[in-house]
């Protein structure tokens, strides 16, 4: 009896075992790396991304559903007392957002990317006049943030003024002189993110 005939059962089991071994070794990739990186892109249709994601805190999961429209970018001198350091320019990225007033909409992150894919982050390479202004990258209207989570108690706190169904925000990023942003990325909960081209 040939070796192949004697071992045909094991040959059938072998690919299954290889797949099982790969799956068993994939914990860090599936549970740590992919969820903590922008790996799930939200499609942009007609300049608007229908951003959906989940936020879990203290064992409670909240669903986000926010329509994000990128309105444009321009260079500005200063926003709410925030300026770029020497060697950089301050870019303002304008968004219009729409969501049910009961949806948690604070805590977004906006970053810019250049043509080489290098990332530019909010607050870096900036100077803040502490006597001026409010947060300029919170993604929700100041004083009308809508529900936010108290991370100590895990409870939802409503803002003094309800958030309107639609609002505008501006996020600013200092980008070195001579660098043009090609893409602006927004996300609340990784791995979900939306990319908009900067024209």
């Amino acid at each position, binding site marked *: 009896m040939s070796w192949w005939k004697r071992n045909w059962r094991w040959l059938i089991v072998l690919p299954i075992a290889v797949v099982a071994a790969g799956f068993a070794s994939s914990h860090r990739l599936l549970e740590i790396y992919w969820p903590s990186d922008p790996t799930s892109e939200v499609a942009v249709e007609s300049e608007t991304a229908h951003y959906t994601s989940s936020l879990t805190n203290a064992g409670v999961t909240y669903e986000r559903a926010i329509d994000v429209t990128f309105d444009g970018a321009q260079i500005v001198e200063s926003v709410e007392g925030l300026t770029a350091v020497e060697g950089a320019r301050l870019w303002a990225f304008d968004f219009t957002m729409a969501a049910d007033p009961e949806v948690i909409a604070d805590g977004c992150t906006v970053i810019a990317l250049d043509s080489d894919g290098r990332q530019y*982050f909010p607050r870096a390479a900036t100077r803040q006049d502490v006597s001026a202004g409010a947060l300029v990258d919170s993604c929700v209207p100041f004083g009308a943030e809508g529900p936010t989570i108290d991370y100590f108690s895990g409870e939802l706190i409503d803002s003094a003024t309800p958030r309107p169904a639609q609002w505008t925000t501006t996020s600013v990023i200092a980008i070195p002189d001579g660098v043009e942003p090609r893409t602006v990325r927004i996300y609340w909960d990784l791995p979900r993110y939306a990319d908009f081209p900067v024209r």
Partner: protein
Amino acid sequence: MAKRVMKLSAAAIAIAAFAAGSSINSLLPDREAVLNETFPVHGTVEQAVEIRTGSVSVGDVGTARTVTRFGATAQTSAVFLTFTVTYVPNGIETSVAPIEVEGGNSHVFGGIQPYGGLLKCGASQAGLAVSCPLAVEIAKDALAGASVRIYNYSSASGDDVAVIDLGISEEDATELIATAGTFEIADPSYGGAKP
């Protein structure tokens, strides 16, 4: 008979394989050691070294007995090692931290300093240099042979670390201690794609 020999051979091979595997396993570092392993990238003063998140260099090495920052003053009976860290991010992280000094006596100095400063440098953007004057309180006998260690902000272990040899000899150390004066920690300065 032949079958028995084959079975015994298979058992012997299996036992030998287990023994070899166990022996190799005992020589390998454990999981924690692997995760905490750093990858030193060596350099000297004014030399730019590349770590995973960008380029770093150290310059303006000196000493002080008194350090001022935001109008507050800290004095030491030991010595403050003063230097400037310059960091050019590559777009992964905006800052480098922690920054510490490994003395020539092998002791490590860092953490929150008497003047209240954190040993970090940033935040900047890809391609934009940021230079941060820093002062680290160290023992006098640690000055000769000291080096500065600069870590990636996101992973102080298990990643690149720049190790900058300050090139301080015993004679240099004696002179630096004798001439230590006052050092003012200025705000970080930005500009240019140096180093």
